[in-house]
């Protein structure tokens, strides 16, 4: 039997007459990276807040590491790490002081802040006040802060939003290393490429409901279309486009026929992105 790190059972939250999260159910296995995707207002942040004990569900329950979050909030929070979307560091303090503060809150002893800073490439700036950091550096420090207690579950809310490629890559590496360590990662993001690259499975949230939950590959197979984009040379020397749709019974014969009768110049494969699939399922984009 699979051990689940996270179980959401009929999880519900509403603000007055607005249902933010509508009776959702899902499980996340230990060591799995779950991409949690959806446009603004889909209910992602509310779900994360209920899972991390920041908000009490209006209905249903969240179980983390076998414990009901509402009943064991302190114990649960001692074993999770949360990286927020908005920077909420103590800017007057240095990076080392920030990490030491949170390590003390988690009771981590001994704690060597510099080790965590080096994991996010900030070892040379540990003694600088956070207010002197760039946005990318602050975000990397936020990720480092979420790791100080070696969490069993790591919640990352848009960890790479608005960052330069180098900072984004550094954070993605940290996420993969956490997975290798055995941590479960709950990754909320708008970045479909990132979700595709990192996630074992993804959840599509829309208007408080889960509209899809599967591996990126299965979602692409189920909802997307794969094709070969081919450029062929005509008799006059001009180039023309051809397309062969993959994953159909006719695909092999179509390919064979193309190469037998046409002068193929270039061949590229094309597959649907998660964004395409989200639009396909919900009829709206992730940035709407």
């Amino acid at each position: 039997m699979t051990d689940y790190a996270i179980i959401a059972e009929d999880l519900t939250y509403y603000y007055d007459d607005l249902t933010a999260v509508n009776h959702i159910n899902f499980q996340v296995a230990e060591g799995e990276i779950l991409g949690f995707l959806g446009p603004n207002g889909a209910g992602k942040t509310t779900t994360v807040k209920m899972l991390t004990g920041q908000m009490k569900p209006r209905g249903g329950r969240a179980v983390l590491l076998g414990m009901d979050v509402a009943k064991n909030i302190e114990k649960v929070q001692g074993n999770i790490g949360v990286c927020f979307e908005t920077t909420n560091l103590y800017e007057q303090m240095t990076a080392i002081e920030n990490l030491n503060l949170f390590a003390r809150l988690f009771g981590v002893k001994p704690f060597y802040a510099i080790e965590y800073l080096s994991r996010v490439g900030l070892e040379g700036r540990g003694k600088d006040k956070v207010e002197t950091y760039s946005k990318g550096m602050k975000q990397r420090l936020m990720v480092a802060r979420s790791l100080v207690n070696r969490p069993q579950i790591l919640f990352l809310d848009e960890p790479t939003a608005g960052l330069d490629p180098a900072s984004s890559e550094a954070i993605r590496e940290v996420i993969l290393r956490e997975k290798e360590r055995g941590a479960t990662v709950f990754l909320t993001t708008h970045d479909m490429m990132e979700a595709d690259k990192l996630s074992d499975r993804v959840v599509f949230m829309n208007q408080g409901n889960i509209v899809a939950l599967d591996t990126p590959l299965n979602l692409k197979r189920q909802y997307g279309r794969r094709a070969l984009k081919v450029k062929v040379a005509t008799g006059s020397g001009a180039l023309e486009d051809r397309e062969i749709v993959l994953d159909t019974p006719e695909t092999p014969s179509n390919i064979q026929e193309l190469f037998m009768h046409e002068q193929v110049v270039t061949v590229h494969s094309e597959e649907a992105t998660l964004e395409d699939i989200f639009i396909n399922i919900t009829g709206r984009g992730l940035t709407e």
Partner: protein
Amino acid sequence: MNWRIIGTLVSKDLSLFFRKKGILAITILGLVFYLIIYFVMPGTVSENLKIGIHAPELPPVFQHLPEEGLEISIVDSEEILRQSVSDGTYIVGISLPPDFIEKLNTGQKPDVNLYFTADAPEEIRVAMDSLVNEFASTLTGQVMTVEVSQEILGQDLLGTPIPPRDRLRPLLAIFIIFMEILGLANLISEEVERRTAQALLVTPATVIDLFTAKGIAGIGLAFVQAVLFMAIVGGMNVNPMIILVVLFIGAALATGLAFLISAFAKDFMSVLAWSIPVLVILIVPSLGVMIPGAITGWVKVIPSYYLVDAVHRVANYGSGWGDVWTSLLILFGYTIVIIGFGILVLRRKLQ
């Protein structure tokens, strides 16, 4: 200096200021608030002296006293007179014996009892003594024909003259305590607005931990400073334990007010805007110590009155637990209510 640049900066700052609707609202409300305070304060000065008289037979000469700027009330018994002076209804009580006129007419000296409130100025005591003798002289045409005995009801606060700087002690002590409201409220509002509180609350730290920590920090800062001040100015030479308790409760009161203010404030400027009216109100009772008679009974609705009263009585007059326990109890009650309310509204904001 480049006045053009300065002008541009001033213009920019004013523009930004007026775009912040919250601060604009607070500014206007603050102005309204100060105007209300001004008009609530008494606009006229009453120079009438409230006197209670117990006299089985009131001599005609006493009936003219109101014209002399005195407010006279006739009291049925000497016991009621004593009680009325004790509770501050009358500043002076005059008790004339039943045979007052008869004795005067027969050339004897009647015994007249004068009762004074604890804080009645020395000048009034002397004046009343003279007044009774003067009336007796008017009635008889003789000089010094009355035996006057004076009694101070309650602790005599005029026994030892208090130097002006010692009268200032309660004001300075509460100023030190309540100025901490600013610092603590700013600390808390920043924590909420910058969402660092949110980061703390996904660790094992609970909301209660957070409030307790803030409370300890706030009380500690205010209390230590106030104790240091009182120790240096000699305010703890008498009954230091009472002073410590009073200052501790005062520091807790300041912390509760800081919780309340930080629940409404968003940044340092709004903390300042909310805090100043509160500070002004809290300082009012101490004026009564600096200028005796300047304020009246309404000031007792202000929580800091009981802090000032206790500090003043203990530090300046050596009062003991028995004299100030009611003030301490009321101050404690106010503190509990304000801290509770502060936690309630701040908790709502945090969540």
